[in-house]
């Protein structure tokens, strides 16, 4: 939390003035009982009407003065708190933009979102309250005790004892309840878990006729929640009764000893009233303070979480300017003994990968789930660095490129087809902000997305909903491909980007890419043998290792894993069938 205070720097004036005005207001509150005492002891005792009027006028002007002070204080506090949190929010957002895939993986998006939204809001509230009340409440409590001392020393001892006892009660109940609240939260999570499970698994649960069992399980958890809520409630509701007793015992003691002193002439009647009034003020402020401490503790916890994100260093090593680019026009991509081990992972996801790809070639990458296909293309695009060995692009190590040159080189179509809220045009322009409509449509045509755009109202102006909800999976996928093509990349990565396309569209896409984008190096990641079948080079991955590199025909002969994949999708019979078909059609149509 501490390091966040640099964001308060521009608001130093406000964060000092706010509490100061608050203190000024609080000291006025402390004067009031003294004035009442004076009214009783001088005004009433001496039947001095003018004195009473004067003192009441003082009370009213104190009211106005207090209003002025507190409004000023509220303004400064609000300004400092809001400005502080805005700066933090911005710093967070900006920081997250600099993180690499590794840190994004570690954090997870939901964490990042919570930090930027609810955590920052909590910090804002906490800061606002702290500036307003953190000084005020203790000030009034201690002020009241000190005022008591000015009235009578031994009576003030009662105050000290009462404050100590009240604080002990309030804070021990608080301390006792915090772990209990955590337990309540835990039980609530249990109820939440079963509810979620019942919604997600509704078909299976109903198929197994588990309705009554689920109700039983739910009731059990729900009852457990209720009983812990009740036992927590029993303790937390001790707060009011206990503080009430303490205050009243103090008052009883006050009157008892006060009576003796007044009888001896050591104390006046008005002074007793004043002491009584101070006692009431103490209770109110201590309860407020307890509330405030809970709020501030929460805010500090949020602040610490925010700081942890801000402290997370970006692991990017790419220089700001590309270094020593020795251009190799022949080999677009080269992996030499590259290994990738994700942070905190126990084993490498890819190991010992070596291959070369010439500019303009089409490379297929195939393998089962978790075999390392996506890791390989992510390493290629410099999203993750090789933990051993190296990755070179056009003869230069990936790490030597500046981040912006690296991004310009690649067109990436990720597995998850993500589009953003806005028009189709806005979305496609992510690839290149300066692209003309003509460029956009050309890319769309290659991506088989032209007719999607043409069939939508407004064409390029068609508004896409958040997450692309108003488009089908296949439409989204084709638009994301178009978006990558708008970049006119040197290397295109299609990471399982045709999974939602039917076979015919998939084939048409591959044909168009090959025919219209000559010279571009293409990586096709797929689980379908048919998608990579005709690539210049197929890399077969199994459990993080390249178990075969070559053309389809070579691999069918030499690579058991490839054959297994192929057969599981086509069956032996089809191959014979297919071979016959191929020879009938002739090699012309194969045309790679």
């Amino acid at each position, binding site marked *: 939390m501490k390091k966040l205070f640099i964001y308060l720097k521009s608001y130093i004036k406000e964060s000092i003035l706010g509490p100061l005005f608050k203190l000024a207001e609080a000291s006025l509150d402390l004067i009031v009982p003294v004035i009442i005492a004076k009214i009783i002891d001088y005004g009433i005792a001496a039947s001095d009407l003018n004195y009473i009027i004067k003192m009441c006028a003082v009370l009213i002007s104190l009211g106005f003065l207090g209003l002025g002070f507190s409004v000023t204080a509220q303004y400064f506090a609000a300004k400092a708190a809001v400005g502080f949190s805005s700066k933090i929010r*911005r710093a967070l957002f900006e920081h997250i933009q600099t993180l690499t895939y590794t840190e994004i993986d570690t954090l997870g998006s939901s964490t990042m979102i919570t930090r930027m939204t609810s955590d920052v809001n909590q910090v804002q509230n906490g800061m606002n309250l702290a500036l307003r009340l953190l000084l005020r409440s203790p000030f009034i409590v201690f002020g009241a005790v000190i005022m008591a001392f000015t009235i009578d020393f031994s009576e003030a001892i009662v105050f000290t004892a009462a404050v100590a006892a009240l604080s002990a009660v309030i804070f021990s109940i608080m301390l006792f309840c915090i772990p209990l609240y955590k337990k309540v939260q835990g039980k609530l999570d249990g109820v939440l878990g079963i509810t979620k499970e019942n919604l997600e698994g509704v078909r299976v649960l109903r198929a197994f*006729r588990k309705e009554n069992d689920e109700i039983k399980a739910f009731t059990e958890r729900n009852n457990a929640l209720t009983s812990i809520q009740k036992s927590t409630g029993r303790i937390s509701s001790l707060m009011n009764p206990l503080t009430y007793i303490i205050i009243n015992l103090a008052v009883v003691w006050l009157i008892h000893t006060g009576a003796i002193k007044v009888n001896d002439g050591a104390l006046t009647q008005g002074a007793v009233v004043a002491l009584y009034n101070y006692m009431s003020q103490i209770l109110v402020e201590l309860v407020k303070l307890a509330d405030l401490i809970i709020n501030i503790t929460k805010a500090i916890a949020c602040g610490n979480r925010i700081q942890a994100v801000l402290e997370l260093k970006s692991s990017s090593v790419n220089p700001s300017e590309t270094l020593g680019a020795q251009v190799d026009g022949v080999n677009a991509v080269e992996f030499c003994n590259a290994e990738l081990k994700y942070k905190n992972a126990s084993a490498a996801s890819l190991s010992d990968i070596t291959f070369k790809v010439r500019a303009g070639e089409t490379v297929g990458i195939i393998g089962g789930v978790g075999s390392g296909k996506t890791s390989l293309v992510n390493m290629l695009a410099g*999203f993750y660095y090789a933990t051993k060995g190296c990755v070179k692009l056009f003869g230069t190590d990936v790490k030597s490129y500046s981040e912006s040159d690296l991004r310009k080189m690649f067109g990436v179509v990720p597995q998850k087809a993500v589009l953003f809220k806005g028009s189709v045009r806005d979305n496609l322009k992510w690839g290149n902000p300066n692209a003309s409509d003509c460029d956009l449509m050309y890319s769309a045509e290659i991506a088989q997305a032209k007719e999607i755009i043409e069939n939508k109202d407004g064409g390029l102006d068609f508004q896409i909903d958040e997450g692309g909800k108003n488009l089908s999976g296949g439409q989204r996928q084709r638009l994301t491909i178009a978006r990558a093509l708008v970049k006119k990349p040197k290397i295109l990565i299609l990471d399982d980007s045709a999974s939602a396309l039917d076979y015919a569209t998939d084939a048409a896409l591959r044909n168009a890419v090959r025919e219209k984008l000559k010279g571009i190096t293409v990586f096709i990641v797929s689980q379908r043998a048919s998608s990579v079948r005709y690539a210049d080079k197929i890399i077969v991955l199994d459990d993080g290792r390249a178990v075969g590199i070559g053309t389809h025909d070579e691999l069918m002969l030499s690579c058991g894993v490839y054959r297994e994949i192929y057969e599981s999708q086509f069956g032996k019979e089809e191959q014979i069938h297919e071979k016959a078909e191929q020879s009938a059609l002739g090699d012309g149509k194969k045309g790679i």
Partner: protein
Amino acid sequence: MKKQNKAPSGTVKKVFKYIKNYRLLLVISVILASISVAGRLYAPILVGNAIDLIVGKDNVDFSSVGIIITEIAAIAAAVAAVQWIMNTVNNRIAFHVVRDVRESAFKKLQILPLKYIDNHPHGETVSRIIADADQFADGLLIGFTQLFTGVATILGTLGFMLGMNMKIAAAVVILTPLSLFMARFIAGKTYGMFKLQSEIRGEQTAFINEMTENQKVVKAFGREQENIRRFDEINSRLEKSSLRAAFFSSLTNPCTRFVNNIVYAFVAFMGAFAVLGTAFVSGGAFTIGNLSCFLSYANQYTKPFNEISGVITELQNALACAARLFELIEEEPQIPDKKDAAVLNEVYGNVKLDDVCFSYVPEKKLIENLNLNIKSGSHIAVVGPTGCGKTTLINLLMRFYDVTSGSVKVENVDIRDIKRSALRSYYGMVLQETWLRNGTVRDNIALGKPDATDGEIIAAAKAAYADSFIRRLPDGYNTVIGEDGGGLSGGQRQLLCIARIMLCSPPMLILDEATSSIDTRTEIKIQKAFLRLMEGRTTFIVAHRLSTVREADVILVMRDGHIIEQGSHEQLIAANGFYTMLYNSQYSQA
């Protein structure tokens, strides 16, 4: 974000229906609250009386003071005890009511038609049963503890004040509402600011959500700077509106405090005069003790007003939450089983679809006039492009949805005349989207047969080719599978789902093959497990693999909700229709 706090008018009535079970507690709570308020208000009077007896030097009535302070101590102890009991009672009422409401909601969930669950985001339903119920509990609790005590305190104070001095009491009564007006006025003014703030905040959250969830895409396209620019624009608007909202809303306290201070000054003024004015009048005199008491009342009297306006907002919010819960509870349930619904003794696996029509939304027809007659033990593969109605067929067979017209029959009995629980026990279902529950591997396999022995469970796992990988898990069959699937691969999850069915051994099967391929070795195991499962059982299989399709007895080729072709692989290829096209597209050359 604060939710809209509008609740339909009937909500209060419905809440009371739940509270009715605890009416005795409610009566106790009200009685205790009255006692505690009376005690709390009586204490300052006693203090005032004591002060009146402490007039000055050698003018103190010690014996009376002694009695009074003993009374104060006794009352304080009584009030504290009563209050604690009242709080406990209130806790009990509030938490039990919410528990009951939550339970009704969950029970409803079990009999809601699938249509509701499919059409409402799960997060929303969860938030009703969890967050809304929780907020409702808080509201009820605050309502019980503060609303009644607050009102009682106001009335009690008023009564005591009027009893002591009409004029001053009248002044207090006239002046205090000012603070309420003040609070109202500010709340009204700030409403618009808060609305604007929450709008901008919503816009910013949406932007943050969208971009952060897809941070990798943002990076891949180098959009970082552009995003920061857009973020800044929203952020600065948010800062401005937040400042206004935060500042103006924080004026409520200073302003009400100001009014209170003025009232206080008036009481002091009028009280002092009253003391002077009646000093020489015997009987009904206004004493200094009365003044002290009045001053403490003046402080107390305004507090509940401020609290009550807070409590009312809280209650409105709670009612709005309750209304959302009741909406769920009152949702139309699925059509209940007929009273004389049958449980078939013998199910061989004969299924008939007679002229079935079905659509999810009336405007969009899906399945029309579908006729099928399936003989026991046959394997039916359903193929077709996505969205053609393949999974709809599953919904109809399992009666997750009811047909619009026509009928589905098992052993020639309309499934609407069979108990749902019986009907569903005839089928074993493995869906493409494998769902495992939060629990151990064992729990998951035994889902359909909780009393299965370890031997049976292991045998089922072995039959599903799952035993070997389960043994390799850290705790074998006791390994806990969390919400995220506990590190199991998609294929392994599917094997567990198959083992689940193996254990129950139902006469008919519904299998939905996974589209995304699973690693090759597991895939082969799944195919083998499927084949073993299908032996001798009527099987509906939504097929994506051509090998599965070829081996089926009957292939149903679906397109746009219709079965356009039907027959064996060879027959369909010979017919050279849509199936042939579909089949050949697999070989489309790139």
